[in-house]
């Protein structure tokens, strides 16, 4: 049902936790199932130096949070803003369409966290 990549991220999540006094942070919750993803980031010279996550929900939510923090590290803010949930789902080895909608909350979280930096 799930790819080895997804299962591996679920079992051994990377960058779990919260960056103290982060440069950018946001939390998103899917109101139907309650899946929640929080990402905190440290930004250095216009690039994301470090990203950490916390998540509540199904295995997809948790694995997507873990993988996203790996993808985000080293990205410019612009690159991060262009990251889509579909890309995260692909990198997880594929997630069914309806599950992307309810469980991959990455795009919304990043845009909420970084949107204000760009606007500011």
């Amino acid at each position: 049902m799930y790819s080895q990549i997804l299962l591996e991220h679920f079992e051994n999540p990377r960058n779990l936790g919260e960056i103290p006094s982060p440069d950018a942070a946001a939390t998103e919750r899917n109101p139907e199932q309650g899946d929640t993803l929080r990402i905190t980031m440290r930004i250095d010279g216009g690039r994301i130096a470090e990203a950490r996550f916390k998540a509540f929900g199904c295995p997809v939510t948790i694995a997507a949070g873990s993988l996203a923090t790996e993808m985000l590290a080293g990205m410019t803010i612009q690159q991060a803003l262009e990251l889509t949930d579909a890309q995260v789902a692909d990198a997880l080895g594929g997630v069914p369409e309806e599950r992307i909608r309810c469980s991959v909350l990455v795009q919304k979280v990043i845009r909420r966290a970084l949107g204000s930096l760009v606007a500011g």
Partner: protein
Amino acid sequence: MGPARMLTSHRMKYIYLGHNATTPLHPDVLASMLPFFAEKFATPASITHPPGREARDMVEQARGEIAAFIGAEPAEIVFTSGATEADNMALKGAAWAHRDRGDHIVASAIEHKAVLDSCRWLEKNGFRLTVLPVDRWGLVGPDDVDRAITDRTILVSVMHANSEVGTVQPVEEIARICRQRGVLYHCDATQTVGKIPFHASAIGCDLAAFSGHKFYGPKGIGGLFVRRRVRLDPLMTGGGQEKGRRSGTVNVPGVIGLAEACRIARRDMDLESARLLALRQRLHDGIVATVEGTHLNGHPVRRLPNNLNFSFEAIEGEALILAMRSVALSSGSACTSGESGPSYVLKAMGVPDDLAHSSLRFGLGRSNDADQIDAVVTSLGAAVRKLRAMSPKV
């Protein structure tokens, strides 16, 4: 150990707690069936030759044993492919045969989908449906049954026990009300036949569905109890087998295996259900002592001896199952059921959505022992702690 090897080993070696979904075939059941595939392959309809007559005799002997086990006459048993077909036959067959008399069906909100979807099909075909509520334990109120029956009602369908939460319904009382009001009562006994005593004539139901693979019998065989003189239109028409009630070549190995499963259940039921009750208590106490924020779903006493259903605050069920790795379980979470929302059974009982999403069903059976139960409790505790530590504060 790399993740790939770990996953392989977890597929190979796990603790099976899905006995409310299905059970492994008992070795004695398998042995009883084997001669009837290649050696004694004749169909009981072929009474013109000795092998056919032998098959007929074997099937009729099995029918007698199965009937005795569920408190019925042999002529009251119709073999089907399982409980889904039996439920379909009961609902659609009775409604259709009695459509000159009425157009109203009553069913509880927590019936199996085989019943509920048959009711919906009947609704699409001109019948009316009343869905009975259940209380917080999952119990149907006999007074609600009485109130729901009108002079147009043909049939009431209330299951003996629920597959998700194990709640055992007051079926004798419901049967009595149906008899007094002159309507048919269908009791889906899929979860009880073979686990706890089920006696059709003592309960007083008119129809009852059951299935072999729920109690160590084979998949693909089940039956419908049809009380004498109850009219049913057949779903399957053709060769007129089962006295015209269910055409199609009888599944002889399945029938033989079902009879053997009944024999084993009759012999072992008292001891095995006492053993399972003790194991379930151990699991219950272990969970409550190890994990904070738990909620028992279903009735605390009136429930199947092998079933436990818990919700875990601030946990999602599928993640919990996956985090426990080597335990085979099911959840009321939407993500595991393929439905758009969480378990309709828990919803009907008034369980909030977040707790329904976090529910696990533990179905104990013959393969489980105290060591396994202790391992499950340990694994569950660790998984809950791990997942809760991941959770952001909202």
